[in-house]
């Protein structure tokens, strides 16, 4: 790639070293821990599914029971007891799920022969990883079959009716209009639920519940419209929250293609406990990596609360950290959809140039990464005509800097969740703009001492200073002191701390072991 910004390579390398330094102690912590949702995700991979009459999912029934049975039980991993019950009861996974949903106590069967459990588990690991590999192969095949049929950048549209069947209608219409990626927005506050609801759902607020059945329904619908349109339509959902690994597991099983997954989003923006989040994100990302799922990180969120011009460096710093945490979980650059956003105050003089600079900088520092670029939201207003103009320039910058995943801005962003026509207008605008400037990226250079170049150098330097500070203070303390996103989160505060599990010496999790092996993460 030809550089347009002439960022010094040694400074970029130094920033990556800082990220490694910052994340090292966190990684050590992670390695010693699991969490209730990591255990539930493991169970889900093994086949645990369904819910009891009150809607409590089987994985929760199991883990809650094990937890209640004493802390030493979960330290060995939930899978051990689940598989033990399978072996001891001599039932299928489906039958066991059924039994558990009906009240069967997973602690009843005494712990049996480890060898038998090991063998049975291997069988489950093989079955489940084969399914995930099949999904990956199917995706590769389809993307090969329909190659060059998607837009560049990929056009990403959200649906958010709250009802999966309505979502399907809207998603199909969006795909017919030209969407390459459909994201089903999650219902408000699902990220704070410490369980994943079961089955198809039709009641959500501002979004639709992420459930495995909903994933399946939407996947089938997109495959159908994809065949008509001769385009592989990518499906996205949201992992970050109290159930990151479970949602990742469901996504892997149902062939999702992207997943919102940020190493710190839950901590900063949902007040989830920091230790819990760091542990959860790691396991969820290993699953994503294994399933070939692109993660989308949430740097854009920094800019909804802080000023996008002043705090642009926090976005870059977070990209370095997300990248590093991603590497540590086995994600290669091409699965790292690092986030950023077009969020500057539209009244800033030369704001367009600063946005261009930020986007180009991300492109050059993360050259192989399918960058996820978010539209203006904060400064959108009821003036839909102004909003449309802002989206037009956003579309322009995205194409002008060769972004990877392009979230379409809605002219009604400040008014309501998207109407069907809003989405159409968004796609139409993006297609017009991007086709009309197809070759811009290759045609344009920036003046060496100009605004765009200077700004990128400044932001890189600010990001480095910031990361030096964080490296000095330490990650956990930095979060506690509010260095990120101007939010302070106490180490032992936030939701979900009680769900953290210290791994015992006999911690049993062949799924984790399989991923570590296959992803080449062994030390």
């Amino acid at each position, binding site marked *: 790639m030809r550089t347009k910004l002439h960022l010094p390579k040694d400074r970029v390398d130094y920033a990556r070293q800082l990220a490694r330094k910052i994340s090292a102690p966190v990684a050590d912590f992670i390695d010693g821990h699991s969490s209730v949702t990591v255990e539930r995700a493991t169970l889900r991979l093994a086949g645990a599914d369904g819910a009891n009459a009150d809607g409590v999912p089987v994985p929760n029934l199991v883990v809650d029971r094990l937890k209640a049975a004493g802390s030493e039980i979960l330290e060995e991993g939930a899978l051990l007891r689940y598989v033990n019950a399978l072996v001891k009861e001599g039932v299928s996974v489906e039958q066991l799920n059924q039994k558990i949903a009906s009240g069967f106590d997973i602690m009843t069967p005494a712990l049996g022969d480890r060898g038998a459990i090991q063998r049975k588990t291997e069988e489950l690991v093989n079955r489940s990883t084969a399914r995930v590999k099949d999904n990956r192969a199917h995706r590769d095949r389809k993307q090969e079959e329909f190659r060059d049929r998607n837009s560049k950048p990929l056009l990403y549209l959200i649906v958010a009716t709250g009802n999966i069947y309505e979502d399907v209608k809207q998603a199909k219409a969006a795909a017919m209009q030209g969407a390459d990626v459909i994201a089903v927005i999650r219902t408000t506050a699902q990220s704070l639920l410490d369980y994943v609801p079961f089955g198809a759902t039709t009641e959500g607020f501002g979004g639709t519940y992420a459930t495995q059945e909903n994933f399946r329904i939407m996947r089938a619908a997109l495959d159908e419209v994809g065949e008509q349109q001769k385009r592989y339509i990518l499906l996205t959902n949201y992992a970050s929250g109290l159930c990151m690994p479970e949602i990742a597991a469901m996504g892997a099983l149902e062939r999702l293609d992207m997943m919102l997954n940020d190493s710190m989003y839950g901590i900063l923006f949902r007040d989830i406990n920091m230790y819990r989040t760091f542990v959860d994100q790691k396991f969820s990302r290993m699953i994503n990596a294994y399933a070939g799922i692109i993660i989308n990180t949430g740097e854009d969120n920094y800019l909804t609360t802080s000023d996008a011009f002043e705090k642009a460096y926090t976005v870059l710093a977070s990209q370095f950290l997300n990248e590093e945490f991603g590497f540590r979980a086995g994600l290669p650059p091409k699965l790292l959809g690092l986030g950023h956003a077009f969020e500057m105050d539209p009244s800033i003089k030369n704001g367009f140039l600063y946005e261009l600079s930020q986007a180009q900088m991300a492109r050059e520092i993360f050259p192989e990464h399918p960058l996820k670029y978010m539209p203006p939201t904060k400064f959108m207003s009821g003036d*839909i005509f102004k909003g449309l103009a802002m989206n037009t320039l956003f579309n322009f910058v995205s194409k002008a800097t060769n972004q990877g995943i392009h979230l379409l801005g809605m002219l009604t962003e400040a008014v309501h969740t998207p*109407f069907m026509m809003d989405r159409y207008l968004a796609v139409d605008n993006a297609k017009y703009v991007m086709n009309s400037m197809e070759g811009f990226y290759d045609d344009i250079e920036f003046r060496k001492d100009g605004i765009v170049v200077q700004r990128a150098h400044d932001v890189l330097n600010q990001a480095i200073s910031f990361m030096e500070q964080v490296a000095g203070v330490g990650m956990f303390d930095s979060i506690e002191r509010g260095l990120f996103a101007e939010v302070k989160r106490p180490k032992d505060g936030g939701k979900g701390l009680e769900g953290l599990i210290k791994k015992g010496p006999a911690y049993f999790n062949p799924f984790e072991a399989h991923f570590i092996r296959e992803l080449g993460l062994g030390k």
Partner: protein
Amino acid sequence: MRVVKPYGDTMDDGKVQLSFTLPVPDGAKGREAARKLVLSWGFKDCEVVHSSPLSDEFSFYVAYGKSESSIDYDSVVADEADSDGTMSMDEVNEFIRQNIGRKVVVVGACTGFDAHTVGIDAIMNMKGYNHHFGLERYPEMEAYNLGAQVPNEKLIEYAVKVNADAILVSQVVTQKDTHIHNMTEFIELLEAKGLRQKFICVAGGPRIGNKLAVELGYDVGFGRGAYADDVASYVVNKIVEKKQR
């Protein structure tokens, strides 16, 4: 009966976007006036999501309303000279050879003070428009395009001279209903001369609907997106129909 309402993101939610100007200053009172006005149009809910001053005396509003009314879609009759029955250029020529047996003569112009010739040229000129050749290219037709700003009187004279089958009138400027006055004058002139039945009268232009044209006494009207083949198909069918009467 199939009842249809506007759709935002849920069936029958009735959502409609509106924008307009009011001759009042911007402010809370203006926004409330805007809201009331929208409600007066039979919308149930209305949210004025934006307002801004255009001057000291005018202000601009963007609103979203929720319509209560619906219509019976089954009872709607599409009224556009639509292109379902359209033949291709070759088919039209064949039709003429089979059913008329002589060249069909067509005269067209952009009449009155109107100088927007691109539309009538799109229909008549050789090269046509959007990959539809114009009438001049039809071997079985003789097409005379008189161009811009042709007085009605002169257009009729010419049509008589070349013994035209059809007269094509293009009207693009509609401000202050100038097209209506001009189109009406054309028909009145024809009638005064006792020539209305002699010609097939075709009107066209971006704001001309079939309904309006027929109301004003034309045989047909073509709006946005009309092509030469639509017009040719209509004309040749009409000639045969007239012969049969």
